[in-house]
């Protein structure tokens, strides 16, 4: 059974204080690992897809990396507007399977 574990559950940062969020996964053949941002009362917003170990992707202050067992979402010099819940999900190679989500990390950035 595919599983995703995210840590920490919640993270509080000062503005400008860089940090990383962790996503550990087990999957029967990884087709893709996905990062989403979710603001309160809204649906998840797509950020990145990573397909193979060693791959990295960046968008503004966010950089996602992937190994064979986990992914990290690095946040460099965060701003209050980066406050949100960040969700990690995996998709296995077994056909057109839906995503399996972790419980998310709730990030608060304080000015």
């Amino acid at each position, binding site marked *: 059974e595919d599983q995703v574990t995210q840590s920490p559950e919640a993270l509080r940062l000062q503005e400008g204080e860089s940090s990383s969020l962790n996503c550990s996964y087990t999957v029967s053949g990884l087709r893709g690992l*996905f990062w989403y941002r979710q603001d309160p009362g809204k649906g998840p917003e797509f950020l990145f897809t990573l397909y193979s170990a060693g791959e990295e992707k960046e968008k503004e202050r966010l950089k996602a990396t992937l190994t064979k067992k986990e992914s990290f979402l690095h946040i460099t010099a965060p701003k209050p507007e980066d406050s949100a819940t960040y969700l990690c999900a995996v998709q296995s190679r077994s056909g057109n399977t839906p*995503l399996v989500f972790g419980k998310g990390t709730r990030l608060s950035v304080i000015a």
Partner: protein
Amino acid sequence: SAVISQKPSRDICQRGTSLTIQCQVDSQVTMMFWYRQQPGQSLTLIATANQGSEATYESGFVIDKFPISRPNLTFSTLTVSNMSPEDSSIYLCSVVRGGVNTEAFFGQGTRLTVV
């Protein structure tokens, strides 16, 4: 990306009644899914909406409780039937374009409160 319109955005319903949620996409997509997100929890897949045939339900979800329709490649509905307070949740429509595109995009969600 895909533009997904989900209606209603929120509703308060009496127990024992039913609510139908609509999901409209701006272009044809291969896959459509329905998720539930309970307060403080992550997303749980309810079912895959199959075009022209019965939906594929995940363990713990049944067609009598959550009937789903998908008459074409851009539209789907989810009905929450005979509601109880335990059904209070956010319901999300998700789509995947298909082919080389594996990213899933989400609607804004329907916040359902059952009283």
